[in-house]
């Protein structure tokens, strides 16, 4: 579904991604872990098409097509969803209004009939249960005055509505208390399926005990330095990122000798 080859990217004049290789197949959940500044969010932004990040080399294929050639809205309509680490506030625009426009943009792109207000309302009522979100938030301005937890639930709720093929969750666990984490994770798990892939970006193992990944990658200094099964996350939690960094330095030294 997703193939990243030798991806290098910079932001603000600084080289951040230094050769990423990653393959994600339908139905898989990949976790990307790594210390602050390792390039996790930059990777998410490259996939979503943020203009503040410049790709200097490499390629990204989404279902065999050149993803980097598509503007962000086309990627979204093709089924790429990014749950933002910091969801933005849009004063005066009701959550409902934005979501209806979004859902219909995707439906139109797929050649499906656009939903009218009643059909959309029915859909929201059904999907909002997934994240146990307060329905009054639907009529409030997008993310304005939402608590950290409410913002993150709103992201997962949007994901449930938009029915993406590839979902990228950028530190969805940050700022969540344990109960909110459990609810958000349950929502994400309910959306797992054979046709949908997910890339879960996180600092901490704790999210991964709720959303159990198929593959875990460790990102450090712009490269994936280690990949493994879910047990890799546990070892990381136990030993810290310094362990990986030490190990990779050792490996680099060994390969030079």
């Amino acid at each position, binding site marked *: 579904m997703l193939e990243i080859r030798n991806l290098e990217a910079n932001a603000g004049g600084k080289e951040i991604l230094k050769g990423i290789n990653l393959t994600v197949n339908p139905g898989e959940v990949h976790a990307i872990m790594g210390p602050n500044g390792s390039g996790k969010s930059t990777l998410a932004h490259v996939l979503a098409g*943020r*203009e503040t990040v410049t790709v200097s080399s490499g390629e990204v294929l989404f279902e065999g097509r050149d993803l980097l050639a598509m503007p962000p809205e086309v990627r979204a309509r093709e089924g790429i969803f990014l749950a933002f680490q910091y969801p933005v506030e*849009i*004063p*005066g625009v009701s959550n409902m*209004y934005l979501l209806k426009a*979004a859902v219909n943009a995707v439906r139109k792109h797929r050649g499906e009939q656009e939903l009218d207000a009643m059909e959309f309302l029915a859909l929201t009522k059904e999907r909002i249960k997934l994240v146990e979100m307060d329905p009054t938030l639907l009529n409030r301005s997008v993310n304005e005055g939402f608590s950290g937890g409410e913002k993150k639930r709103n992201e997962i709720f949007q994901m449930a509505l938009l029915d993406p093929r590839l979902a990228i969750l950028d530190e969805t666990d940050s700022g969540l208390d344990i109960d909110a984490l459990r609810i958000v994770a349950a929502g994400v798990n309910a959306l797992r399926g054979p046709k949908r892939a997910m890339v879960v970006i996180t600092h901490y193992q704790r999210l991964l005990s709720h959303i159990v990944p198929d593959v875990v990658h460790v990102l450090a200094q712009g490269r994936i330095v280690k990949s493994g099964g879910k047990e890799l996350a546990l070892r990381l939690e136990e030993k810290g990122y310094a362990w990986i960094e030490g190990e990779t330095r050792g490996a680099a030294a060994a390969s030079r000798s």
Partner: protein
Amino acid sequence: MAGSTKTLEDLTKQDYKYGFVTDVESDTVPKGLGEGTVRLISEKKGEPSFMLDWRLKAYRHWLTMKEPTWANVHYPPIDYNDIIYYSAPKSASDGPRSLEEVDPELRRTYEKLGIPLEEQKILAGVAVDAVFDSVSVATTFKGKLKELGIIFCSFSEAVHEHPDLVRKYLGSVVPYSDNFFATLNSAVFSDGSFVYVPKGVRCPMELSTYFRINAADTGQFERTLIIADAGAYVSYLEGCTAPKRDRNQLHAAVVELVALEDATIKYSTVQNWYPGDKQGKGGIYNFVTKRGKCAGARSKISWTQVETGSAITWKYPSCILQGDDSVGEFYSVALANNYQQADTGTKMIHLGRNTKSTIVSKGISAGHGQNTYRGLVKIMKGAANARNYSQCDSLLMGDKCGAHTFPYVEVKNSTARLEHEASTSKIGEDQIFYCRQRGLSTEDAVNLIVNGFCREVFRELPMEFAVEAQKLLGVSLEGSVG
């Protein structure tokens, strides 16, 4: 951010969609301004002598005045002798009595503008007094309004049919000596609308006038006078578009509102005059004096305006809160795109006790646009317990535009309470990206964000008008973000 600045620039480059000229024979007086011009206009309109006298007083006073320069707008000097002061479509001089009598060319123009002058208006519940150039050419719904005793007609007609009302209220809010442009208007105004709602009557429909400047080089000087007698209610809509033109056109209108005891007047404007091309050439100069007087106790005047057009906008719809417990409101969205300049705001003059005013101003600047809010809240000595709430928000798109705020406050009574809030924000690249990541195009994202910014004002507009205003804002911003 470099990428988004460029895209902001791109979205501002949209041609004026309503630029066209209608071929209609015009009955025009020669260029230039003198006492003779004033007499000629009055004579052509067959006015009684009190009107001519009033015009002449204004003209003589105007000669002693200087064009004001305090506004934050810049334009080449206007040659007042190079303007045609009166132009009426010829076919209208006989006075059409029904739509069928209206010049078909005129009607096609209205249709191009999407003005539903015909049967659909009944469904929309709007009576139209359409001003094409300087003379009203069609008025509908008169019968219905007449049953309630409501007068809704052209100003010229009011001068003939209701001279006592005109005489009593004309200049009672904006005197002929008020300011340079209002005084000029008083001397040469051609036509406009007149509304009188009698005691205790609630006008059952929105009254609406579409103004449209057409004949080349014709300054347009309308005059509107609305009177709501004790306990009456009226909602008035004003909307405008003008054809594309290469010369700046001067527009100096005067609107006077009078609300007597317990009366309410709601005045809504959507203004979309030609703003000039992308280099700023050609647009309308809009120097308007709008003022309402809450003359009676518990009266209320509410101004709502959406200003998206004109090369220069100079406009301060104001309220004189004379009656005790009277209320004044001003809700405004002003957009300055490309090289547009807008200097707009309001004056709230508190005279009576327990008077309240609310000001909500939303300024949007894009391209090279310069947007200025200029407001005055004045609490006079006798205005015990007066209250004002002001909120001025500016939204910037791109890095070549400007937003300026000049809130003036004068308080002469210590029991007054005033609040002022102001904010300036840039339309965020992160907001646009968030919307695009959800599948919206950049243009839709910008429209969404801008409409959200303006929501507090739009919700004050009557329903159909709010929809129109949103569309207009979209059209006006197309090309300013890509």
